[in-house]
């Protein structure tokens, strides 16, 4: 199974879960609007995942990565 098919199957299952949510819109204790927003968790997970990957790999990693153990030299002195 290729990667595209895997992505497609996950997207389809996600879509099905949203449909299930549409059919049974039961929300206990909706304190904020997103608790009752249909499909919110799916969108949040997708965008949140993109955001985290971007911040992590795109911003933080280039700042903190070093070629080698920077402490080695100073400890040998």
């Amino acid at each position: 199974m290729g990667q595209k098919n895997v992505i497609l199957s996950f997207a389809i299952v996600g879509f099905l879960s949203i449909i299930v949510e549409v059919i049974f819109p039961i929300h206990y204790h909706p304190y904020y609007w997103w608790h009752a927003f249909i499909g919110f968790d799916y969108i949040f997970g997708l965008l949140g995942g993109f955001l985290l990957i971007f911040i992590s790999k795109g911003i933080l990693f280039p700042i903190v990565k070093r070629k080698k153990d920077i402490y080695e030299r100073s400890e040998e002195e």
Partner: protein
Amino acid sequence: MILHPALIMLGAGIVIPFVPHLIRKIMLIVMPLIVLVASYNLQYGQQQSIGFINNIDLVYLKVDELSWIFVFILSIVSFTANLFSYNYSNRIEVAAQFLYVASSMGVVLAGDWITLLFFWELMAISSTFLVWAKKDETAKKAGIRYFLVHFFGGNLLLAGIFIKVSQGEYLINSLSQNMDIASIFILIGISINAAIYPLHAWLPDAYPKSTISGSVFMSCLTTKVAVYCLVRVFPGVPILIWGGVVMCLLGVLYAMFANDLRVILSYHIISQVGYMVAAVGLGSELALNGAVAHAFSHILYKSLLFMGAGTILYATGFSKLTDLGGLFKKIPGVVVLYFIGSLAISGFPYLNGFTSKAVILSAASVTKYPEVELLLYLASVGTLISTCLKVTYYSFLGEAKKSYDIKKVPINMYISMIITAVLCFVYGSFPNLLYNRLPFEMNYIPYTFDHVISTVQILLASTLAFLFFVEIMEPKEYFLLDTDWLYRKPLVFVTRKTSEVVVAIQENLGAVWGTGILSIVPFFNNPFRKLNVINSENETPEKYDPDHYRFSIGLAVTIAIMVFVGSFFYVRF
């Protein structure tokens, strides 16, 4: 008669290095079981104390709902982790493991500050030996750094406790209404152990360098005991909310690009403890219940994950994702058990992460912190991506990137992992087993339809996000900077320069002083020599020997011991 679990473990830990090999192996299994029974049989309200100086009572056993649940989970993990280490741990390691468990239970059961401090320091010392037990150069250095950080934290705690006790408050009480200087010292001391940013860097520095079973113990004890202390002493301190959220997110962000399996898991400890710290900051009864429940669940699934990672390291000799690959075909059992743990930490339904994380998220929205709820929810997306998906994709599937032989995994490792995985499942499927034992009454139902469906959605969506960027997520071997840079570079530099300046001043002053002294020495000579009454040319003056006039050191030691014994008996009786 009450069996005190920490004292049983302490006694066993002192005896165990001196007994023969066979008895040691039996004790390794039997003692944790005895402790498990002893801690299960503790009743709420039990208390024991012993008199100490200045009319202070040392309350070395005080059981309530909060301490019972912590002692119970600590004794469970002490059994599984000791079983895990059965086949290879040596004398010193076993003793350190026992003392480490004993001291963490001692902290949890302590009713006064002095007992807490004693066990707190013992915890730092015994866990340092678990790092050193790896016996290589990096572990040695990491152990020293680990010890120094905890020594610093312990001293802050000591300072705070010293002030508290001198004010006459020697019993442990909540200090969140009374934030004076002593409380702040105590808070920082505990925060170091709880790995709150930016005081966290000791954790990913030391844990991955420890032994295989050492890291299992460490992942469960130090930070969770600190969470216990926060729940006990600082419930509802607002700064902890944001401290927890920052831990939660930064831990996940680091874990997403870390390469070593145990480094990933170490950053995830920080992230998961972040949930608990934020919950302690929220301070409502539901939130504190959530913190305790999450600590309970976390100890189970994190020990399972560290056992899995340790077993992979044991079997292959590698723990970096850039070296591993195709493990599913080679050690499927270990891979499946690790995978269960990683689903549990991500909050998969019917595993225990789901039931405890949900309580904290609900507490955040009930206490009107919607932004906290969303940020903690966001961190759970990263948890799935980094511990579960990334590790699975790059080390369990695909092909091995380096060639290695697979060592046979001993049966005891499998048994302890299976026990832990079953417990993850039991507490995830029957959450009331845990909920009924939490410190506060609550009526919380995690398995509602909308909650399960939203968890399924978020897990599916995170998986999709990972698959979109699977090339970008590929791990790379790099060295990662963290806040330990502050005390490993600038602090070292400042210390060296300061000592150089001080030494230079001392030497120059000494030189000036020395020439001054030498210049006046002739005036203090034997006056008869000036008068040539004695012949100075032939007679060399006797060389000055300071030791000639001193008492021997033994006399000083004897006096010191006598004074100590005398004053001790004077104060005590």
